[in-house]
């Protein structure tokens, strides 16, 4: 059998339920009274165990929230639907939040989807590219008349996540080592989380609706003046000057946290 044919058959036999008899016929008999199917199972079963372990390592709280059996079932579905094309196992699980959003019955389960989204955002921030942030002082050097046209580039480690408050409560409880957390007090409605990195440490905090909107638009590359206009549109009952001041405060905080790497009209 040609090398290419063997590799195609070998891979199909790992991915399928059972190995192809033609492939098994290519192997020597094992010397220790073992069936060749059992020897091949090291590759067949090992594939699923290994990829499930990658997911468990990337999503430890999600796994806890799902429970072992449900997690393993989900892992099987994910492995079948999104087989790895990545050289680096680091990226294999990155598509899990999207898979959960688009696959029944998981798309109905906002709690576990929220937990996965939080863990994915924190993981992405953890090893995002290193880019030097603009110091806070640089903001003061920008002439006031230039502010309305300013657009911002955010540090690659910055992300926003929308998740139910109860998902964040579950995440924090597991991180704190609580074996059986009481989540009855946690809110079911969505909250907006801001994720960023200060040096090497990943941080997150809840942001209110106004800051979430400002962030969303700034991340989309909207200029500062337009962001102020959108905030005024969203909160018509509040004076526009106060909203502009709020936007300027957000901006100052983002600079201070090292979240902005470029600002230019």
């Amino acid at each position, binding site marked *: *059998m*040609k*090398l*290419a044919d*063997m*590799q*195609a058959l*070998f*891979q199909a036999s*790992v*991915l399928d339920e059972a190995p192809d008899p033609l492939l098994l016929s*290519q*192997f*020597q008999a*094992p*010397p*220790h*009274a*073992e069936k*060749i199917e*059992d*020897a*091949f199972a*090291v*590759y067949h079963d*090992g*594939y699923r165990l*290994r*990829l499930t372990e*990658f997911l468990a390592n990337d999503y430890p709280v999600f796994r806890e929230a799902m429970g072992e059996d449900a997690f393993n079932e989900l892992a099987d579905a994910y492995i079948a639907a999104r*087989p*790895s*094309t*990545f*050289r*680096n*196992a*680091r990226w*294999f699980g990155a598509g899990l939040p999207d898979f959960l959003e688009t696959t029944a019955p998981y798309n109905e389960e906002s709690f576990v989807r929220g937990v996965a989204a939080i863990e994915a955002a924190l993981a992405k*921030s*953890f*090893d*995002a*590219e*290193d*880019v030097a942030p603009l110091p806070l002082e640089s903001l003061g050097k920008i002439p006031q008349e230039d502010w309305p046209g300013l657009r911002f580039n955010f540090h*690659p*480690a910055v992300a926003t996540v929308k998740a139910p408050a109860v998902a964040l409560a579950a995440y924090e409880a597991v991180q704190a080592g609580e074996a059986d957390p009481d989540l009855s007090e946690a809110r079911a409605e969505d909250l907006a989380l801001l994720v960023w*990195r200060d040096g*090497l440490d990943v941080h997150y905090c809840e942001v209110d609706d106004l800051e979430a909107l400002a962030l969303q638009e700034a991340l989309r590359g909207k200029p500062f003046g337009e962001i102020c206009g959108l905030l005024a549109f969203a909160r018509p009952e509040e004076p526009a000057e106060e909203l502009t001041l709020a936007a300027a405060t957000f901006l100052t905080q983002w600079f201070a946290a090292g979240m902005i790497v470029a600002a230019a009209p």
Partner: protein
Amino acid sequence: MSQQKAQGFERAKGFGLGLRSVYYPEILEAAQPVDWFEIISENYMVPGGRPLAMLDRIRADYPMRMHGVSMSLASVDPLDMDYLSDLQKLIKRVEPELVSDHLAWTGVHGRNLHDLLPIPYTLEALDHCVERVSRVQNFLGRRIAVENPSTYVSFSGADMSEPEFLAELSRRADCLLLLDVNNVFVSGFNHGFDARAYLDLVPKDRVAQMHVAGHTDLVTRKIDTHDHPVCDDVWDLFAYAREIFGPAPAMIERDDAFPPFAELLAELAHMRKLAEKCEQVSA
């Protein structure tokens, strides 16, 4: 010029450990009796953040070697040039003493099974691997070391044994070899060959590094799990390898069920002592 000098790794000696993130605190806290660390290349092929920062800090104090698991040298898929470009960037950052990967494939048709899969040791596979290793070395501008894999099935239509295949590969591609003693032991048991006879066939002037590790014994089969201390049988085989191959750099791989760092250091001290004893006997 000695054979070893001709191969360009005569300066490299010593005893190392695999760099794993669970041991960062101990490694950063104080100087450790470790001559060098070997990294899993892919663990640091990320955009930035803590992994690369830790890598840079530890590299400032220790020589390093790079060991990959995704080059897929034996695959019939085209070489992944994006992967090799990323690897090249990491090589420039780390300036490793050695870059290695496995005599294995990880997938075809664009898939990655994240495993080191076996090949039949045929003339066709040899031609294929020689061409691939040569192209990788040309791209990277340096020789790589190819590691003997641990395998759980073997092919009946082989034209040669694994060590014969490695000998021909290293000769024709002018590459180095990373001799994993535990893999020889595990595969020897799984396929019923004599591990010492295997070592006798490995070309002495190509072995640029050695690995030892623990494995799992399932009675009818042994699995290369790196989650146990090195067993006495593997230490015996390591001692035999030292007699044959001399003072090549050697290290312990540990990838799961991580013991306290002190235990790993004690295991490394055992390796050092055993190797020194072998050198005295040889002298």
